[in-house]
């Protein structure tokens, strides 16, 4: 539909000018199609501020936020790098631990009996209760931030690995059984490949969770990163900076999610 509309637009205006106009129109249509809810929100934001008569002391306008971002990029660069480093490191470590433990647990009923309850309990302890306890155990530093992210990322990877490995069709299991495949062969050639879509789903679900975990931990305990910037700017009543760092954090998280999503599509397309 996008194509035919812009082609029609190009025909009606005609010539070189029309082709350029068509290209711009096509680009705008794609942007509109992909980002319409965000565009709606960006319009609603100042309208809502204006309708309620809120002043800058209550909530900053998009212009205030953009101004602070453009005039003080140096304030944001280091926090973004710190937060990214901890989130990506914690995500990788948490996925690795989750998948390896998932495979081990799937192989042994004893291991699954012993590890499943602990994993379940780790998963359901709210991070809001975990942070004060972990901070007292591991100190109020960056190491604790990594521990928190690993714990958050671990469970989706773990449980989706186990459920993905169990999802193999009975006929395939019978085939491998008839051919006399050993446990290792069955895991590496049958069950683990079958679990790859589930594992990639875990990665996609965990990418924003990792960023959020880092932000929450930085907000409460460590003195670096975007979470700390959010907190310190709120403490100093610099609302433009608080909202701008929230936007930067959101953009960072969306970027991580997008990367995980395209990785998931590419990998799943290859294995299925």
């Amino acid at each position, binding site marked *: *539909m996008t194509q035919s509309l812009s082609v029609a637009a190009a025909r009606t205006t005609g010539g070189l000018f029309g082709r350029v106009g068509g290209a711009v129109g096509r680009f705008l249509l794609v942007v509109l*199609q*992909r*980002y*319409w*809810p*965000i565009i709606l929100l960006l319009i609603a934001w100042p309208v809502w501020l204006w309708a309620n008569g*809120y002043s800058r002391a*209550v*909530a900053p306008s998009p212009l205030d936020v953009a101004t602070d971002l453009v005039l003080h990029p140096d304030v944001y660069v280091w926090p973004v790098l710190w937060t990214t480093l901890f989130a990506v490191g914690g995500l990788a470590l948490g996925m690795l631990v989750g998948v390896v433990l998932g495979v081990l647990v799937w192989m042994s*009923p*004893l291991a*699954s*009996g*012993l*590890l*499943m*309850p*602990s994993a*379940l*309990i780790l*998963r*359901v*302890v*709210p991070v*809001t*209760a*975990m942070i*004060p*306890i972990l901070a*007292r*155990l591991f100190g109020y530093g960056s190491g604790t931030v990594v521990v928190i992210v690993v714990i958050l990322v671990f469970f*989706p990877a773990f*449980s*989706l690995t186990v*459920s993905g490995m169990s999802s193999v069709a009975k006929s395939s299991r019978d085939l491998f059984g008839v051919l006399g495949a050993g446990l290792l062969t069955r895991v590496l050639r049958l069950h683990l490949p079958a679990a790859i879509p589930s594992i990639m*789903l875990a990665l*996609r*679900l965990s990418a*924003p969770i990792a*960023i*959020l975990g880092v*932000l*929450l931990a930085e907000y409460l305990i460590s003195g670096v990163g975007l*979470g700390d910037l*959010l*907190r310190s700017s*709120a403490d100093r009543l610099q*609302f433009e900076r*608080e909202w701008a*760092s*929230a936007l930067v*954090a*959101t953009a*960072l*998280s*969306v970027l991580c*999610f*997008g990367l995980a*999503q395209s990785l998931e599509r590419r990998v799943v397309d290859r294995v299925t």
Partner: protein
Amino acid sequence: MTSRLRPVLYGVSGVVVLLVLAELIGQLGLLGTTWPPLSTVVAFLLDPDNHTLLGNALAATVTEALIGGAIGIAAGVFFALLAVLVPVLAPGLDRFAAVIDAVPAVALAPFLILILGREGTPVLVVALSVTFIIYISMSSGLSVASHPYQDLFTVLGARRGTRLGLVDLPAALPKFFDGLALAAPAMILGATIGEWFGAKRGLGVLFISAMQNYRIDLLWAAAALSVICSLIIYGIAVAAQRAVARRFA
């Protein structure tokens, strides 16, 4: 020993090992005063003097979690169906789902309080996170129906809505319950995060006041209650997931 009893036995002994380990760490003081013996926490939970405090907090948090969870499930399913029925909207919805989840609750707080007040904020935080999880798992589930079935219905002249109801939706149910199991702890978590921003009651309020007053026993008791709640909701979701998986296997 029958093969059906064995996993239950392993599971129970695993929990016992975990609890004994936690108790020992506390009794021996291996991790200092931050890690009390479990028996102290249980005694605190059972002490009638603490029941009003803990009960009020629990009731507030569970109410927020359930209301927010119901809103989130409805919204997540609605948007996933919308993306399938009106494919033009799908790319925007996909990106917006990521944005909804990505906006850190910490940063949203002043904004949410402005709209809904301090008491409504936890419900909205829960609803937002549940919406995202359900949307992701539903849209992933709606795309798993095998193509031969979809093609068959299309060839036989079924409308998109008919095919959705008869083929895609039943095929999406297992993934939906997968999502629900993942959403269960997110409900309690979202409620407690929301409560950090000035709610009067709730487990999240207890975490903060216990931390600030060095009430380690209260902190652990509140944490234990939140874990038990999450486990109950999670258990219901997993039971439903198992039933559906058996039905559609």
